[in-house]
């Protein structure tokens, strides 16, 4: 971790692979615009105003939401992995997502009529506090083995989830919570996804700050000795992750494992240069989430399976493979 791995994939092959990926993702985005209950065709778009409106009101917002959410979660994963110096940390394995879920519930209890902005604000604050708690706990562990860190995060998340369930049950909000949790991207129409633009801004800032995160990933001592204000970078990273997670959670719910799989896959392909990797992390993330969402949309049409469910199963499998693979590298 932290070292720039000499890439094992030859550069020409790598370039072809990246080009192919970009093409596939573009195809997925196009498919996402066209697939759904209301049939939209390219020729129809030119002639039929209803089809055009359908595209603008429902498909385009949904596709954009997918793009932003995927970018947010994958980039959050990269930042968290740099800050914690651990390849297996991302918002759902650090409890950040679960904390923002708790935040959403608290808003529902205290201020039922809150506007979306208010909910996002509170969810982000909870995500921020949760991430700080996680980082604080990490500092107290002497043995920060790459395996125990995500374990602690997952367990913290489980405890926070138990609190959320209890509170939700106590205030008769279990149903609202489960609707929110399984909502996913199906309810996204024009007017609901716009806050996700903020996430795009965060991704841009992450790109600007990429080198600092790479330096922070070297560890506190080394980072400080090459002139980095370590604490500040960590705080900035935490804030960005919290905002991205908070906003995404309010709009589309949990997106498990995306921030874990994508950065790891990109690192394997390209090495550990954060600035060069970030755009590709976004592209891969969008592709993966888009594919899951498309599967969810088509398998049980006209009903839907949330992308998060599919991602949960696929992501867990990939996570296990990554963990086991790492073990081979180490010993």
């Amino acid at each position, binding site marked *: 971790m932290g070292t720039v791995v000499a890439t094992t994939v030859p550069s020409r092959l790598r370039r072809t692979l990246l080009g192919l990926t970009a093409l596939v993702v573009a195809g997925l985005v196009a498919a996402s615009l066209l697939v759904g209950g209301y049939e939209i065709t390219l020729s129809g778009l030119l002639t039929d105003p209803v089809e055009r409106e359908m595209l603008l009101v429902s498909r385009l917002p949904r596709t954009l939401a997918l793009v932003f959410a995927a970018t947010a979660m994958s980039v959050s994963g990269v930042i968290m992995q740099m800050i914690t110096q651990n390849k297996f940390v991302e918002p759902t394995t650090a409890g950040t997502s679960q904390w923002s879920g708790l935040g959403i519930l608290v808003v529902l209890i205290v201020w039922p009529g809150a506007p979306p902005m208010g909910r996002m604000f509170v969810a982000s604050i909870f995500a921020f506090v949760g991430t700080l708690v996680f980082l604080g706990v990490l500092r107290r562990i002497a043995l920060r083995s790459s395996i125990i860190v995500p374990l602690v995060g997952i367990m913290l998340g489980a405890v926070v989830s138990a609190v959320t369930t209890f509170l939700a049950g106590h205030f008769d909000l279990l149903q609202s919570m489960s609707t929110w949790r399984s909502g996913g991207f199906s309810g996204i129409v024009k007017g609901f996804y716009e806050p996700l633009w903020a996430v795009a801004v965060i991704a841009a800032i992450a790109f600007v700050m990429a080198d600092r995160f790479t330096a922070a990933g070297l560890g506190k001592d080394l980072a400080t000795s090459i002139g980095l204000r370590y604490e500040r970078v960590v705080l900035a990273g935490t804030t960005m992750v919290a905002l991205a997670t908070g906003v995404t959670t309010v709009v589309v719910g949990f997106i498990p494992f995306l921030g874990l799989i994508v950065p790891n896959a990109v690192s394997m392909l390209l090495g550990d240069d954060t600035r060069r990797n970030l755009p590709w992390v976004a592209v891969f993330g969008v592709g993966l989430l888009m594919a899951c969402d498309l599967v969810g949309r088509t398998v*049980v049409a006209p009903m839907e399976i949330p992308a998060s*469910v599919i991602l949960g199963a696929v992501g867990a499998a990939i996570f*296990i493979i990554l963990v*086991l693979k790492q073990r081979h590298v180490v010993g």
Partner: protein
Amino acid sequence: MSLVEERVAPITAESRPATDRTKRGPWLRLVLLSGLLVLAMGGFATLFVHGALDFALPRRLTMLGAMAVAAFAQGVGTVVFHTVTQNRILTPSIMGFDSLYTLMQTLLVWVFGGAAIAQTEGVGKLLAQTVLMVVFATILYRWLFSGRFGSLYLLLLVGVVFGMAFDSLSTFMQRLLDPTDYDMLSVQLFGRLSTVDASYLPLAFAVCAATGLVFWRRRHVLDVLLLGRHTATSVGIDYKRELTLMLILIALLVALATALMGPMTFYGFMVASIAYQIAGSHRHSYVLPMAFLLGMFTLVVGQFVLQHIFYAAGFLTVIIEFVGGLLFLYFLLRKGKW
């Protein structure tokens, strides 16, 4: 051969007089807890009855019966699991047994349809479901515990993530079911203490009694397994066979507990950890009953307090999850300091 005898001899020589001295301690503790438990159960069954006792008593006794099964399955199952896997952090539930059960149930309904499941009533159905669960759990966890994972934490992480994958897969398949099938499934999956079907209890008791008997007869083998895999093998215990047998029984118990109480991740862990602390002995003849009594005590007192003082009867499992989760984190972090 002589090497083995040399190794074993000093242990027994030392432990004989020691047991005589400490024997009264663990026994006394068991008796004390039993007394408290009887009091709690009496209070639970008869206090705060509004209206006819004839109406309340059978329902409460059914609940107590369900609690006994859950406490036995989770408490005793977890202790045995700890012993055969030689650690005190992993539990069947944390390693995803519960999620596996849910997945298996969903799979069954998904393949055969809810109607087919509903028509085959009674013991045969329960047996078929349990066999399926046991076969899969044994294969999966035998693979996990075959020693190919060097580190305990790695094993734990893989188990936890397996559980998450099973949960997602179950949700995925549940979404594919039609609503009637889903209804049938959800009745089976989300067991609640207060809505237990009394007709299941005799069978559950029988299974608990049978597994309990097996554990009891093997309690000394379990004691030896505590010394570690190599020591156990060197005194002539077939480790793989014991591991497989115990995993089968544990899968059986977890299937029972999940059917009756719904999935509970940290309950078994909590009960087992406290049982080690207060049993006053490492011997399974004390720890196993202690785990059962303690599990039962937690459930009875917890339910009593929630029902009559906080009026939140349905939330016992959630609160146990919360407390147990914190305890688990504490253990994990303390372990990390070593």
